[in-house]
């Protein structure tokens, strides 16, 4: 029982980290109807900026406190993500208003390559580390309930907490504010949104900024876990099944999808793995996504798209 719980909790926390990346996809899809292939590149770009700035800041300012360096690096990386968002709107999206989804998708694919290249050009292409002082050592909890207690990875726990807070804030923002409403309106119908005077360009900058900040948070957490290197861009691919499961248009869906996949991966690996020779963790998520695509293509929480014929 204790072992099952331990696996379950481990899965839930891993799932939260997938959700963090998945939210980035959902935000941009909601507001512009674009499936943003560049989300992974944005995570990489943000993590690179964070890692390198925190390295450079002590040299620039002469202050050696890691807290100071990390805070300044976070702000600078945030500003970089804002600039990226603004440039993407200015140079790409603005010229593609009312275009087919496939056109926009290809455009984001191009943005992904550009961001990866430019990011590594500016910040270098080695392996860097982000150290924001997350506790690495695991702890044992519930020792009086189970023999030996349950092993919990503190780092994952804090990461999951941060992800949960971010999601809560974003949900409130979307549901309760006028800008959130405008974002949802733009997501539904560009032309109608324009006709009532919603400034499309500003909305897009806002939403890419928010997605950029989410990418930054995801980049910091994943980067401090895995190290900042090119392969970070492929983290987004791990989040792909999450958005399919949860529904492309739903922020809560991204969370639940992430949790299901995180738990599913871990449990199937531990309990089914031995029978099939292991390695389930790698393909489990994609398999699940495939099943969903066949039976519930809009995902768990996505909006069903009904077209009038």
């Amino acid at each position, binding site marked *: 029982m204790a072992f099952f719980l331990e696996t379950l909790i481990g899965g839930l926390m891993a799932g939260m980290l997938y959700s963090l990346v998945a939210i980035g996809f959902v935000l941009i899809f909601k507001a512009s109807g674009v499936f943003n292939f560049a989300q992974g590149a944005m995570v990489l770009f943000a993590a690179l900026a964070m890692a390198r700035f925190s390295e450079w800041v002590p040299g620039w300012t002469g202050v050696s406190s890691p807290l100071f360096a990390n805070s300044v690096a976070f702000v600078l990386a945030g500003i970089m993500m804002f600039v990226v968002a603004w440039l993407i709107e200015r140079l790409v999206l603005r010229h593609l208003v009312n275009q087919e989804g496939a056109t926009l998708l290809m455009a984001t694919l191009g943005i992904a390559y550009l961001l990866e290249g430019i990011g590594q050009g500016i910040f270098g292409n080695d392996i860097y580390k982000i150290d924001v002082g997350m506790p690495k050592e695991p702890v044992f909890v519930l020792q009086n309930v189970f023999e030996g207690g349950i092993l919990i990875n503190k780092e994952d726990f804090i990461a999951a907490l941060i992800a949960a807070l971010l999601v809560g804030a974003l949900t409130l923002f979307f549901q309760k504010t006028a800008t959130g409403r405008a974002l949802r*309106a733009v997501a539904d119908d560009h032309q109608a949104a*324009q006709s009532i005077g919603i400034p499309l360009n500003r909305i897009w900058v806002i939403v890419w900024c928010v997605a950029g900040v989410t990418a930054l948070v995801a980049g910091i957490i994943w980067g401090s876990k895995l190290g900042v290197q090119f392969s970070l861009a492929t983290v987004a691919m791990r989040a792909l099944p999450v958005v399919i499961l949860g529904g492309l248009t739903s922020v809560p869906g991204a969370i639940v999808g992430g949790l299901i996949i995180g738990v599913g991966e871990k449990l199937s690996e531990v309990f089914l793995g031995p029978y099939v020779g292991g390695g389930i963790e790698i393909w489990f998520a994609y398999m699940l996504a495939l099943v969903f695509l066949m039976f519930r293509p809009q995902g768990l929480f996505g909006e069903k798209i009904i077209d009038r014929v």
Partner: protein
Amino acid sequence: MMGERVIGDVILDLRNISLAFGGVKALTEISFDVREHEIRAIIGPNGAGKSSMLNVISGVYRPQQGEIVFHGEHFARMNSYKAAKAGIARTFQNIALFKGMSVLDNIMTGRTLMMKANLLQQAFWWGPARREELAHRAKVEEIIDFLEIQHIRKTPVGRLPYGLQKRVDLGRALAMEPRILLLDEPMAGMNVEEKQDMSRFILDVNDQMGTTIVLIEHDMGVVMDISDRVVVLDYGKKIGDGSPDAVRANPEVIQAYLGASH
């Protein structure tokens, strides 16, 4: 709210508008004007250029030639945002509502241009943002009452029947408190009862709020009943302009429209 309905001066003047898509001429040198507080209809057979005309006024299409004068301001190049800012609201023939959002939220979006609180204030649900939200909400509730859709306030519009969606579409446009309201086939696809309801709402908007209305309609009977003046288009050209009675008696119109299709 206006009690008396007095037709005023020219508010919208379209001068010599020509629009072509590649080699296809959608509109050829069309001029007409719209007076304040009137209901002005644009009619014509299929493909006459009615929708193109409306899209030119609301800034969706940019004419190759001609100019639009709205409230003394000249627009050679109009766009949707500028039009909305200038006080031009519209509805859509194939309803373009925000399907995932509730009726209330849909109509609230119509207030976007009047919201002044900045992003930061909204994000923290700060005093000014909250007061503003509540004030706009009150106005939106008035519109909901006016259109008699209280019972579906919280329903996502995607689930509503067609006739009600049309009404919400009108509500969203009204929430902008427009100076001029463009209606793109407001009664298309409706049954007789729904048509009567919609006619009543259009007349009430015009009468009680004093809003100037330009509408495109296929249904000749309805148009003749509620419009003050009618423009007739055929093959992108203007073939008639005047009171419903004058238009009805115009031989060119009878041949192009009434004679041909009725």
